[in-house]
């Protein structure tokens, strides 16, 4: 794995095509009048590997039970390098109950949820490139290294946002309004004025497809427009916000009723933004491309109507079979163990 971690990670376009493969045997099969699924066995192994690299992680792990060769792919550095180059990105969200081990993962394509265990005494704090950063539940100043494929940042704050692109922003949980947002660019910091800032409630900044997006409820009794939840996108100039979406009025009424002034948190991932109502287990998913809103189905792993409040926290999660830093982690003295286990 060591070879896979360096800054000159091959671009996705430098993929070497499997040389010297003749499709002549495929033609033979075509000539046959009968056809069964065994046609696939005519496909050369390197091309089958390429199909396996496109499987989402659960299917990949199930595929390991197919045969010994498939089982060993996870330990083949050639396969893992191929995987890093071509495997599609999976924009999932990871939700967890604070101070509990009941986490669940939401896959956006199928809207399926999976339960998974956690570590005792630790809570998940951030996720990047398939890795999850766990923070000790013990009191005291927290300083944790989050290692992502793109950046190693020392994080020492209670509230932060980080994405796989290495962009991150920090602000405290107590500040209700990120009136002054700071962007890291070429070591210079600039002040950004939030739009409608005097009327914003529960604002959050999220990253989505290399754009910074501000999500906030807009409320003011004398305002001529009805209360709503709006999204603004920061333009390339870095100073102008443009409104990109307003939650449909009917949905906002539903949302406001559940939210009841508690506020909400937002997480962005790919084209999705998850809006999680504080003090509840309800969350909305917004698809930026399709401009579609939907409620995330309730987690089957949590008991509803119980006495304790099932408050959900969540962040973007990109499940992957390997990340380029796995080799680096192996060299660290910290006794990190099976990282593939993080998927499960």
């Amino acid at each position, binding site marked *: 794995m060591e070879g896979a971690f360096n800054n000159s990670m091959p671009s996705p376009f430098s993929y070497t095509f499997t040389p010297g493969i003749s499709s002549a045997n495929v033609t033979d099969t075509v000539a046959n009048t009968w056809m069964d*699924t065994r046609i*696939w066995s005519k496909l050369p192994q390197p*091309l089958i590997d390429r199909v396996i690299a496109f499987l989402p992680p*659960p299917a990949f792990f199930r*595929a390991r*039970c*197919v*045969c010994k060769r498939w*089982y060993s792919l996870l330990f083949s550095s050639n396969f893992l390098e191929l995987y890093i180059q071509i495997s599609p990105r999976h924009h999932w969200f990871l939700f967890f109950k604070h101070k509990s081990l009941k986490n669940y993962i939401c896959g956006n394509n199928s809207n399926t949820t999976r339960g998974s265990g956690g570590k005792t005494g630790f809570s998940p704090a951030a996720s990047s490139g398939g890795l999850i950063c766990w923070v000790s539940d013990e009191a005291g100043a927290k300083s944790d290294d989050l290692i992502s494929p793109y950046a190693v940042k020392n994080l020492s704050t209670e509230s932060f946002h980080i994405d796989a692109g290495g962009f991150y922003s920090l602000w405290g949980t107590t500040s209700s309004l990120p009136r002054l947002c700071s962007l890291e660019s070429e070591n210079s910091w600039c002040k950004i004025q939030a739009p409608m800032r005097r009327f914003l409630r529960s604002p959050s900044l999220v990253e989505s497809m290399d754009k910074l997006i501000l999500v906030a409820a807009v409320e003011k009794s004398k305002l001529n427009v009805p209360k709503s939840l709006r999204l603004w996108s920061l333009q390339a100039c870095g100073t102008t916000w443009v409104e990109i979406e307003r939650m449909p009025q009917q949905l906002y009424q539903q949302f406001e009723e559940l939210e009841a002034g508690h506020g909400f948190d937002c997480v962005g991932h790919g084209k999705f933004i998850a809006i999680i109502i504080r003090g509840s287990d309800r969350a909305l998913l917004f698809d930026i491309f399709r401009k579609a809103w939907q409620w995330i189905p309730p987690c089957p792993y949590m008991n509803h109507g119980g006495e304790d409040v099932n408050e959900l926290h969540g962040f973007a999660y990109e499940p992957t079979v390997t990340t380029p830093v796995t080799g680096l982690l192996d060299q660290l003295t910290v006794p990190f163990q099976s990282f593939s286990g993080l998927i*499960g």
Partner: protein
Amino acid sequence: MSSSAENPTLTAEITKPSTEIATETAQSAKKITLKTSDDQIFEVEESVAMEFATVKSFFEDAPSSTDTVPLPNVPAKPFSQVIEFCKEQIKFKANPDETEKKRSNSEFVKEKTNEDLVEMIPVANYLEIKDLLDVLNQAVADRIQNRSVEYVRSFFGIDNDFTSEEEALLREEHAWAFEDVDED
């Protein structure tokens, strides 16, 4: 593009027609003659043929060649489907629209049988059409991703070389991955 930039004459020959074809279809474009492994002759517009990295490098080595290009590893049936795909792709080069491109790609593979896919994969690999290879790999992955281990084995014609004890242990280790599997 980067390699053709080293040769100014070639750059003009390649880039000019391809942009014109995309916008003005009225103009007759240069055709390239390709011969498949089963001796079928295909006349393909130059812009389409340049989507095949293998063919493109053939012309980079011999820019003025008017010969028929032999494709010894490419049978006619999958090749005609590959041409169909590349024609669509070229439209998106002139007018990039990721959402529409995705829709068009999934439309392309939707109607294809497993045989179509398995025949096109080596062709896309031989002709070095990365976009197509990715689309085909994704299509196959989509077809098997919710299927049982037994289904995947028979799909690829793979013999199970685990002992039943080994397999049971593995299934237990990855138990979480066995939720939500479709019926065979």
